């Protein structure tokens, strides 16, 4: 058997950019920023993936989808590696991904607003209204309020717009 030259990593990245996130199918795995590396180890393709949340049930589906997609492009020897560090951050969601989220009705994360757990200085904000302005993905109004710190998946929070009255998901920051 003659070994055909294996596809370049750019090609593999391109294939992965067409694999949708199983829970938010308008964005791809590369938009989400969870593919950390693509490399060849001899004749084995190694794809390094980082989980979004420790307990996100989509993680195993994502691995399955990556495998299915790459096998359909003729990759035979494939290894998926989990990488925890550095931990995933919503800052890694691409600009394109943010626009797709907004168009889909999910307010994209606002970078740099992740909870840091240093509570003493946050009490005033916690007790009062949030100073975080999250625009409604439907009408663009900034008159919005938080309904719950978690939404339909672990990665989102629930908000509502007090102008157009629609509820929406906000992709919370971590």
């Amino acid at each position: 058997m003659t070994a055909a030259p294996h596809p370049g990593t750019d090609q593999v990245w391109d294939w992965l950019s067409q694999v949708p996130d199983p829970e938010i199918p308008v964005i791809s795995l590369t938009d989400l920023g969870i593919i950390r590396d693509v490399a060849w180890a001899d004749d084995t393709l190694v794809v390094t993936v980082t989980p979004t949340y420790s307990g996100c049930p989509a993680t195993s589906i994502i691995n399955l989808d990556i495998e299915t997609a790459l096998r359909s492009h003729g990759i035979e020897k494939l290894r998926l590696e989990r990488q925890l560090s550095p931990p995933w951050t919503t800052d890694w969601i691409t600009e394109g991904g943010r626009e797709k989220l907004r168009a889909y009705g999910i307010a994209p994360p606002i970078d740099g607003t992740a909870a840091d757990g240093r509570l003493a200085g946050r009490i005033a904000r916690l007790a009062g209204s949030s100073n975080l302005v999250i625009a409604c993905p439907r009408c663009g109004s900034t008159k919005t309020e938080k309904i719950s710190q978690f939404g339909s998946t672990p990665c989102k929070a629930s908000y509502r717009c007090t102008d157009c009255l629609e509820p929406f998901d906000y992709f919370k920051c971590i």
Partner: protein
Amino acid sequence: MAGAETIDRTAFAEWLQRVGDNALILGHRVSEWCGHAPALEEDIALANQALDLIGQCQLWLGLAAEVEDKGRSADDLAFLRDAGAFRNLLLVERPNGDFAQTLMRQFLFDAYHVELLRALKGSTDNRVAEIAAKAEKEVAYHLERSADLVIRLGDGSAESHARMEQALKSLWPYSGEMFIDDATDQAMADAGIAPLPSTLRAAWDETVAAVLTEATLAHPGQAWQHKGGKQGVHSEHLGFLLAEMQFLQRAYPGAVW
């Protein structure tokens, strides 16, 4: 991974089970609210928080299984140990009670958990540091939520205030165990793997005092404290929890999805 090689593996695995069991048992307790919470949004929030904790538990118990090297998996540790082999704090096995009890338990634990994870990010064992860095982000968010709700309900209606006050009173005697050092903790601290629990107390005290003040709840001050969970001496509540959590694997050994 210098720490892992020079330290007693039994002590390291024991300590990892403590961290993993806290996440597992609290995660299971919180999941018991699924379908029963006072509002749909809270139901979703509690279920998602339980997912975070159970995900963290998988990482910690996975490492515990690797370190003990007895051929057991994270699932074996979760589903096939009996109560006496669990190493979680008594606080996290306390029954859910009303919503106030659940939230107060969460807040008292979150305020400790975030300090523990922050310290563990500097662990001499890379695997511990990596899991801690991942979990800390999730737990910082848990703390923001539980502190927010303790304040809103403590400084809320007469009814919510009274319930939060009662929750604080009943859970406070279970808070001290988080900061007790024993020989396992000392071995971990000597190896640079984990901080001594007692060193986390000052930051926890500060957070708790600030939030209770804002919540208009009287600080309970010094009180007699229960202990024993870390050594496997549990309350009767853990057995009932395990009976439900482990049912499937006990009734159908080896069942898989």
